[in-house]
């Protein structure tokens, strides 16, 4: 099994530029610089690389919307989205701390593909170790002529800077991130125009997730056919899957897309802790619908998880066991989303605290049966199409699926006017 992104990463260690080059690092860049930008885009398109940040948009296609050519607006920007504030998600931390040059190489190649002159790594504030590691790696890359003017004698110029955030989940939303990088409140922007044509400072901009960018060097080095072959799915490549919650071995593993949910849970996460039973999980972070035991045989790729009624999201799962209260868990999630709403649009600003309040009432033994109808109504009112961005619809995914799969838990709280899992 091939693990291109993580095979050289050792726990607690960081690959230096020399180590990375010893393992074929920056060979992908050399290959890319011999091609035209359009050829690089086409290679990534043929590889079927899809965005690893949650939405799964085809990367090559996203790039192709950027106007390039002599009369196109300049400068163009490339941004690595490393905000990673989706609860339950901790995969980009591994990539940043373990192998920063893989990210930098991915960014230089991607910048070349869209002819971007300036790039930013937008990193979550909490990744203090990662911040230092990237700063050091950027200095090494400049030193080696891999960043700045005339990269490796190709005539291509690209400057790359690090921005660390000051907190707020909404910064991970593509257009909110742009506002944040411009030094503003991170409210999302209306689309269109899309960032590909009018993004950072009004210029053409591509925002890609860190894991997505880390795939790019390997595609350029080994080819689109190889990349498709290492997957067990229509989607190309591997995915970093993660598991947290009461399993025996929480952690991260790079596995081919299309691996089954059961395999990740049982073989890699070691199954449930002794004495606990599996009840369900959020497959791709806090803003994805619950899956349950009946879904254990599904294939983990974009289409497979969607068919089961959820989303692959970030690929990092949060497991619910039989001793943890599902109402309490959903209350925790809605508290998070209500707090992190940027307040820009009414349904999200007002609806999320409302859902939190009702859930708190149910959990605290004061719920009424009609509360469940109100909650169900909210999952529609705050659903896709009614809000400015995807925050509120995402927040409704765990709630709507919890009401569907674990309705008896909610009803028992209301009937007994208490949480059955609290003393």
């Amino acid at each position, binding site marked *: 099994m091939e693990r291109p992104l993580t095979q050289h990463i050792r726990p607690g260690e960081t690959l230096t530029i020399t180590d990375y080059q010893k393992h074929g690092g920056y060979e992908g860049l050399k290959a890319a610089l011999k091609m035209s930008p359009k050829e690089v885009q086409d290679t990534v398109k043929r590889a079927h690389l899809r965005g690893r940040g949650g939405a799964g948009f085809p990367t090559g296609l996203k790039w192709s919307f950027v106007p390039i050519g002599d009369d196109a607006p300049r400068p163009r920007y490339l941004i690595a989205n490393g905000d990673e504030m989706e609860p339950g998600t901790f995969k980009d931390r591994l990539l940043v701390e373990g192998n920063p040059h893989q990210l930098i190489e991915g960014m230089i190649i991607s910048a070349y593909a869209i002819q971007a002159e300036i790039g930013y790594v937008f990193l979550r504030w*909490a990744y203090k170790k990662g911040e230092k590691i990237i700063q050091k790696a950027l200095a090494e890359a400049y030193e080696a002529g891999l960043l700045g003017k005339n990269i490796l004698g190709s005539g291509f110029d690209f400057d790359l800077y690090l921005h660390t*955030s000051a*907190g*707020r989940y909404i910064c991970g939303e593509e257009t909110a991130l742009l506002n944040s*990088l411009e*030094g503003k409140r991170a409210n999302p922007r209306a689309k269109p125009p899309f960032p590909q044509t009018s993004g950072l400072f009004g210029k053409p901009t591509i925002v890609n997730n860190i894991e997505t960018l880390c795939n790019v060097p390997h595609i350029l080095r080994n080819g689109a056919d190889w990349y498709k072959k290492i997957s067990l799915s229509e989607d190309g490549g591997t995915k970093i899957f993660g598991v*947290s919650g009461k399993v025996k071995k929480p952690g*991260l593993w790079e596995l081919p897309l299309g691996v089954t949910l059961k395999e990740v849970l049982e073989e890699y996460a070691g199954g449930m802790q002794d004495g606990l039973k599996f009840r369900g999980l959020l497959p791709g972070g806090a803003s994805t619908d619950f899956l349950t035991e009946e879904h254990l045989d599904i294939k983990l790729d974009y289409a497979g998880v969607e068919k089961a009624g959820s989303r692959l999201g970030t690929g990092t799962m949060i497991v619910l066991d039989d001793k943890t209260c599902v109402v309490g868990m959903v209350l925790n999630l809605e508290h998070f989303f209500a707090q992190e709403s940027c307040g820009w649009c009414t349904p999200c600003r007002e609806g999320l605290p409302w859902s939190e309040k009702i859930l708190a009432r149910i959990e605290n033994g004061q719920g009424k049966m009609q509360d469940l109808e109100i909650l169900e109504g909210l999952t529609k009112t705050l659903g896709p199409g009614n809000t400015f961005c995807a925050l509120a619809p995402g927040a409704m995914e765990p709630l709507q699926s919890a009401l569907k799969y674990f309705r008896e838990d909610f009803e028992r709280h209301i009937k007994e006017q208490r949480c059955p899992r609290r003393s």
Partner: protein
Amino acid sequence: MLSDKERTEIEEHSRHYPRKQAAVIEALKVVQSHRGYVSDENVKDIAEFLEMTPDEVDSVATFYNLIFRKPVGEHVILLCDSVSCWIMGYETIMDHLRAKLKIEPGQTTEDGKFTLLTIPCLGACDRAPAMMIDNDLHGNLTVQKIDEILKKYK
């Protein structure tokens, strides 16, 4: 007044952007790193330095979780209250911290040593429950471990 060091550091950041106002978040972080928090006077100073209005600067300062607009203790404890940490025992850890430090979240201990805050997700979900004290991450927390960790900051 901003110190010379603060000015230099802010200028260093603003060079990365086509207009210097874009570096306002960095400016707030620079000031906070030197002074612990951002006072009303600091907001005015940053505004003047970056040619913005104080209201513009404050609208940014109050948006982001990690910009402190009130004084904090010598060490800031950020305890993750997100879902994975909640499943793995956040409530027990929070109760213990409250009892031990004799403060509620949002407050600072009487001796000014610690401020206790909750924080949404630290990206350490495989090591839940987790907290950060200043720039250090502490994972797989237990009540006993908390006692040992806090001793290091005394």
